[in-house]
Structure formats: C-alpha cells, structure tokens
C-alpha cells in the first residue's frame, strides 16, 4: 500500500478550476518530484493534499485513511507536514519560537527535537533568539524545513525549496533533503530546478494544464528527450 495516494484530484479557487483530476502516489521512504510549467497546478496540488485548498472531487488517502476533507491541523497530526513556497517562516518570531510553533500539536517535551534540528542545521543554532525575519534566504529555507520536521513527519511536502536561492545554496538544501530522506522521511517535491531535483528522486510526475502528463522513474524522466526539451531547458 502506498504511503500517500492522491487520486483524480479536482480543486481550484473560487470559480476557477486548476486541477482537473490529478493523481500522484508516494511510497514509504521515497522522494517524488512533480515538475511542469508555471501555472500547471503544482502548488495547488500540494495545498489540496494538506487541506489548504478544498478537494472538490477525488480522494487523498494517507496511510490508509481518507484525509481529503480534513482541516490542516488534523492532517499535520497524522504525520504529513508541508513547507509553502513563500512566507514559510514566522518573521516576527525567533528561530526557537518558530520551531516551537512547528511542534504546536505536540504535548510531550520537544526540547530534544529542537536540539536535533540545531544539529541538522548548525546555522540556526548560532543565535537561536534571532528573529526569523532577519535571516538570509537560505537560512529561512532551512528554518522552514526544520519547522516542518518538528512533528517527526513520515511525509514532507516541499513547495519549491530552492526558490530564490543561489545554485550553491540550492545544492545544499537538496543535499539536506537526501540526508533527511535517509532517516526514513518520504518527500513530495515541487521544483523549478527540475534537473537537480529529479536526480535525487526515485520517481517523478510531469503535470501540464492541471492534468497528469507523464510519470516515470526519476532518471528515466531525465533521459526522456521530450521532457528534457519541454521542461528541463534543453
């Protein structure tokens, strides 16, 4: 049984329908990347899975349970966490407070988890009382991922984790993703830097105009000449 099975999702905003029946699955421990042109519905798909955008028809099954109509707080509790593309930290709160907010639904002592995050992202440990709003783009992205990891998720959804980052920083972020993945966390990524993301992905999906276009193993998509021409910039 797949860890996450989203099938034939239809969703959108107001009167506009963005997704016209998209399906993706993620298995335990996998990294899966969704690529596609701007406006094809990648971000909306993420939001529909985590409950920020209403799923009109179709189902989202996570660990055998239908979560398609649950609110975000409930979904988060089940071990599916999400990092939005932008505005993904609380700028007025300190680094430590951001991590505490990530653990809001935890009632146990999460002090140890915060220390683990500081080990994983040493940059954040330098001045834990610094306001998140004063961090650099890369540090913010690290903090956003760390915040989402506070709940020990089984599956992490990252919307464009490398958006606005330098190539060096992008590599660093992707490296961290592989490391975290090695501890058993599955990932569903949306990425502009499709080539780099697909390289470390087990599988990938190509979306276009709110519909599934292709899906295959990560390296197979990389080698597919049509994908290369249309989505990987030649």
């Amino acid at each position: 049984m797949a860890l996450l099975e989203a099938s034939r999702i239809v969703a959108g905003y107001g009167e506009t329908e963005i997704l016209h029946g998209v399906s993706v699955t993620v298995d335990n421990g996998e990294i899966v990347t969704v690529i596609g042109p701007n406006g094809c519905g990648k971000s909306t798909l993420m939001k529909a899975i985590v409950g920020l955008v209403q799923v009109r028809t179709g189902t989202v099954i996570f660990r055998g349970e239908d979560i398609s109509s649950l609110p975000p707080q409930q979904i988060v509790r089940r071990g599916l966490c999400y990092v939005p593309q932008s505005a993904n930290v609380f700028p007025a709160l300190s680094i430590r407070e951001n991590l505490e907010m990530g653990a809001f639904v935890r009632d146990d002592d999460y002090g140890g988890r915060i220390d683990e995050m500081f080990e994983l992202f040493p940059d954040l440990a330098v001045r834990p009382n610094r306001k998140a709003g004063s961090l650099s783009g890369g540090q913010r992205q690290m903090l956003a991922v760390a915040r989402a990891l506070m709940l020990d998720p089984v599956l992490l959804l990252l919307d464009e984790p490398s958006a606005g980052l330098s190539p060096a920083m992008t590599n660093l972020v992707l490296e961290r993703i592989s490391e975290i993945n090695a501890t058993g966390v599955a990932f569903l990524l949306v990425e502009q830097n499709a080539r780099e993301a697909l390289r470390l992905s087990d599988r990938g999906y190509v979306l276009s105009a709110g519909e599934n276009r292709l899906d295959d193993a990560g390296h197979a998509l990389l080698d597919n000449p049509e994908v290369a021409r249309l989505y990987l910039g030649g």
Partner: protein
Amino acid sequence: MPTLKNTVARLSFKWTPGRITLAIVAAVLVAGLLPFVKMSLIVNGVFLGAIIALGAIGLTLIYGVLNFANIAHGDYMTMGAYVALFLLTGAFPAFGIEGEGLGPLTFGYPLLIALPLAAAVVAAGAVLLDVAIYRRLRQRGVNAVVIAMASLGVAIALRGLVQVIWSGETQHYPREFRQVFRLPLDVRIPPDSVFIAVVAVVLVVGVYLVLTRTKMGKAMRATADNPNLALVSGIDTQRVIRWNWIIGAGLAATAGVLLAVFQAQLLPIMGWRFLIPLFAAVILGGIGNPYGALVGAFVIGVTSEVSTQWINPSYKPAVAFAIMIVVLLMRPRGIFGDSG
C-alpha cells in the same frame, strides 16, 4: 490577501538613521516645550495613557490576528463599565457586598471583585459574538472591511442595549469624596489614578508574559504574523482566535471600568468617543504590535492632556485624531513599522 504584509505583527525594533533623527527631533521638541507645560497635565496624561493602553493592546491584537478593525471595541469598554455598575449597584448589595471609600480611594472593595467579573462577562460575550457573527463571515471568506462593517452593527446594537437597560443618563459608581495627593510642582494625583496605574501595569506585564512565555501567546503572535503558515503548522487557529477575544475584550472591559472611575461617571457613548484615541494609539504603534500600541497610548494620552493647556479641553479627541493624521502622513505603518 493584499493587506497581509501590513498586518504582520512587528515585534522587533531597530534603530535606523531615520528613526534616530525622528527620536532626536521628538526629544528636542519635548525638552523645549517642557518648561512651559504644567507637570500635572503630564501626570494626568500618563494615567489617561494607561487606560488607552489597555484598550489599544486588545484592539491591536484582534486587528493583527483577525485582520479587521473592530469598531465595537469602544463599546466593549462601555459594556464592561456598565456590567460593573450592575454588579456594584444591583447584584452585590443583594448579598451584602457594599461599600465605598476604601482607604484613600473613592470606591470600595466591591469594585475589586466587580472588575474581574465584568472583564469575564464581556470576554465571554465577545467569544459568543465571534461564533455568532464574525466566524461565519470569515468562513464565507468575505473582505475584512465587511467584517469591520458588521462590527459597526455590533457597536450600535451594544450601545442601544446599554441604553435600554441602563438608560442614557449619566451615572456613577458608589463613591465617597476623597482628598487628592499633593505632590511638588503643583501636581495633584487622585488616589484613584494610582489604582488605575497599578492595574494597568499589572495587566500589561501579564499580557507581555502571556505573549512571550506561553505556548498560546506565542501561537497568537505566530497567527498574527502568518495566518496560513500557522494553519499548516497545526496551530489550532480557532482556539487562538478565541483567546484573542478573551484577552482583547477582557482588557477592553477593564479599561472601561477604569475609565468610569477616572472620569467619575458613566455614559453610554463613553466607549464610542474613546475609539479615536484607541485607533490613534494602534496606528501610531503599527497594527498588530502590542508594544507599539503601549507606546502609542502614552503618546496620545500625554499629548492630548498637555494640549489642554492651550486648547479647549473638549478638543482632546480631535488632538488625538490630528496626531494620527500626522503619523499617517509621515509614517503610514506607525512609528515602529517599516517606513514607506
């Protein structure tokens, strides 16, 4: 949401060259005027500022988290004052709880019981109003200004209710005449004002501790900061909103009781008239910023009180309004907000 960026709670403060210049200009102005200002007006302004602060902190928290201007906030103050009046003159005497002139204060110990009870009643009422009205509108996803519109309706209804129950006449709490404290420089302080200041300091420190030390307080700041991220972090935003109303309306009701003590009278329109200084303080401090509202409240309180040395005292709300307009012209996001 287009206005999200403006509503983000700003709890950090940095000294930029612009701000330093502003501070120096303000300090020179204040220092230059000081010899001509009666000390007693400044002291009185500080007490008035304390009452404004209690109202403004609640208003700015609600503004930050719910993203709308609660026009009914002044009437939550009025409600608090009148609920306390009911307790002091109607409910308590039935149980033999009576008395005025506690030590140097004009009022008696029953007010100390009535104050938290009135705050609790108004806080509960605010939560109910949220469930009955504002939550539905939020779920419908209407524009923030429509929610503000609804709060105007609530403000009118609350004031009407106060007038139906307590009439529109001027009233006051049971009180006994008391001598004022006489200090040097011709400063006279009514003992009641000292009580007001103590209550305000305790509550402001309390709110600060809640916002910075408790999980719910941090979640309130987080929700004001970035509501969508709060949602996907698993923060129970409904509960955050509930606590927001409890704290905001509770503080407003307290401010209402203190205002009734300060002015030695109650009038149904007292809270509505107080809206202008409240919003002036909130805007001065930057929307969503409780520390800014605190500073803004004292600026408004002292300035409008000091202005009475030259201007007819009944113009105090107009002075508060003028300060607000000047701030909006110079620094639209408040003295602590980002410039621009």
